[in-house]
């Protein structure tokens, strides 16, 4: 058994496999499948200060080796999370992070303040990259000043680690990463979904209610891997990689590119056991290559 422990900022993770926001519910949906406490961490569903109905149906389109979604941050709001969901998460012996979104900087701050009151939450993942909301979301994450502004504001009122989730829909993701690092981010996670679109040729209509949506799955892996590699060389804070990770080999590629930890997203839909299998597979890889600890391969791409 290799040493899978990793550290993101000042928080210890038993292993480097987290589940991505919006693809793992609140974890409880997976209780039937496996012991969720085996995970390195869970990033729960995108949470906003006010309840959100999300976008209209249809919200999903299957694409080549991927899918588009336009959920639009449907959630019952931070207060409901605190009162009704948080208590159910206390049973988990793993790091739970809340993915926080807002339409304005003030909303991000208000939401983060509520999460700040919750002891069993290890940190927040600041989502400045959701492509499926009219206001806020990706609009913040695609320019350096606005990205930095959100992070700075939340930094002032949130005490625990802030992971900032970056958008891939930008010309130069390292610029944004550097901006949020300077503004006080403790780590960055990437990538969120790529803005895409699907059309039904027979009906001549867009498939999604909002026309465009966010692309995820193996289709985006080459782009995600490139961005993780670029960002890991540009910032000093830890980089958490995701985008199309389906198995342990994919995960290893992200570690080599410089990710301190990874997140499993769309794979959870196809195989609910994916994240657990990935943990086992990483261990198997390290043993086979006679590597003692995961830290020995992070950023160790041989050029």
């Amino acid at each position, binding site marked *: 058994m290799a040493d899978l422990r990793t550290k993101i900022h000042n928080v210890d993770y038993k292993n480097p496999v987290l589940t991505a926001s919006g693809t*793992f519910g609140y974890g409880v949906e997976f209780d039937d499948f496996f012991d969720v406490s085996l995970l390195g961490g869970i990033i729960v569903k995108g949470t906003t200060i006010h309840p959100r109905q999300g976008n209209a*149906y249809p919200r*999903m389109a299957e694409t080549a080796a991927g899918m588009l979604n336009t959920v639009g941050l449907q959630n019952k709001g931070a207060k409901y999370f605190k009162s009704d969901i948080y208590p159910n998460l206390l049973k988990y012996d793993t790091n739970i992070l809340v993915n926080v979104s807002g339409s304005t900087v003030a909303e991000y701050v208000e939401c983060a303040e509520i999460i700040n009151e919750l002891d069993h939450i290890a940190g927040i993942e600041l989502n400045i990259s959701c492509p499926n909301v009219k206001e806020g979301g990706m609009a913040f994450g695609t320019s350096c000043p606005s990205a930095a502004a959100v992070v700075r504001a939340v930094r002032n009122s949130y005490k625990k680690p802030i992971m900032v989730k970056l958008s891939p829909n930008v010309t130069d993701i390292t610029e944004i990463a550097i901006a949020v690092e300077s503004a006080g981010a403790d780590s960055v996670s990437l990538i969120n979904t790529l803005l895409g679109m699907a059309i039904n040729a027979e009906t001549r209509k867009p498939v999604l209610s909002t026309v465009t949506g966010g692309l995820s799955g193996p289709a985006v892996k080459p782009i995600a891997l490139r961005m993780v590699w670029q960002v890991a060389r540009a910032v000093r804070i830890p980089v958490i990689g995701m985008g199309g990770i389906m198995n342990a080999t994919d995960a290893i590629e992200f570690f080599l590119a410089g990710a301190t930890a990874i997140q499993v997203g769309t794979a959870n839909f196809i195989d609910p056991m994916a994240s657990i299998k990935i943990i086992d597979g990483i261990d198997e890889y390290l043993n086979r290559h006679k590597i003692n600890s995961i830290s020995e391969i992070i950023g160790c791409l041989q050029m």
Partner: protein
Amino acid sequence: MRKTVQNLKVIANLRLNDDHYILQLQAPNQLQAIDPGQFANLMVDHSPNVFLRRPFSIYSVDYENNTISIFIKVIGEGTRSLARLTANSSLSVIFPLGNSFTIPNSNEKVLLVGGGSGVASLMNLSQVLGRNKNEVVILSGARSSSDLVELDHFSRYGKLYTTTEDGSHGVKGYVTDHPVIKDELDSFSRIYTCGPDPMMKAVAAKAKLKSIFCEVSLENTMACGFGVCLCCVTETTQGHKCVCTDGPVFNTNQLKWQI
């Protein structure tokens, strides 16, 4: 029953006609109770353009032999690939998923209205209702007689009527043109329906007019099937609800499309 991901063995793949198949799957262990209306999410291997699983109603359950069967209508690459599965292959299945139909009291007379392959989600229900000693009437509507399959099977559990749009079997027209709905609807205390949206809406409208209890099984497109992606929502009186966990069965009074 706790939902699980299992590799089931294909014991048979019965071809009913060009477009319709029944896949019989063997579970390795004792099946726990599967309620009528619940569904399974099937992995499609060996198909380059299919990425996500495909949801199907659990057509019937055999607790003695620990087998379930799935009724498949071929409409695209995923169903085409499933239709090609041969005996002894292995299939990854997440099941049982979703809620289930409300079971009436034993004496009630109930109507099951299936449109096209939607009728598949009513088979397990009709068996349970049969065992429950309900008076069951099944109305199966389709475009043409070739879309009407497994009629013998259904007629075992209740009185069976059919409609076809081209008149090739039963009454010509839509299900709502059938006397059972046009003239006899009052005699039923419950209606259960599954099929194309326009059909379900038409049936629900009739039920509403007569204030008859009506449940539909929806078939929204799904990414996960177990409540985590929030892609499969339908608008209800209480906001967006997931078809895969809050449904697939809804009382039509709950639904926004109820007129």
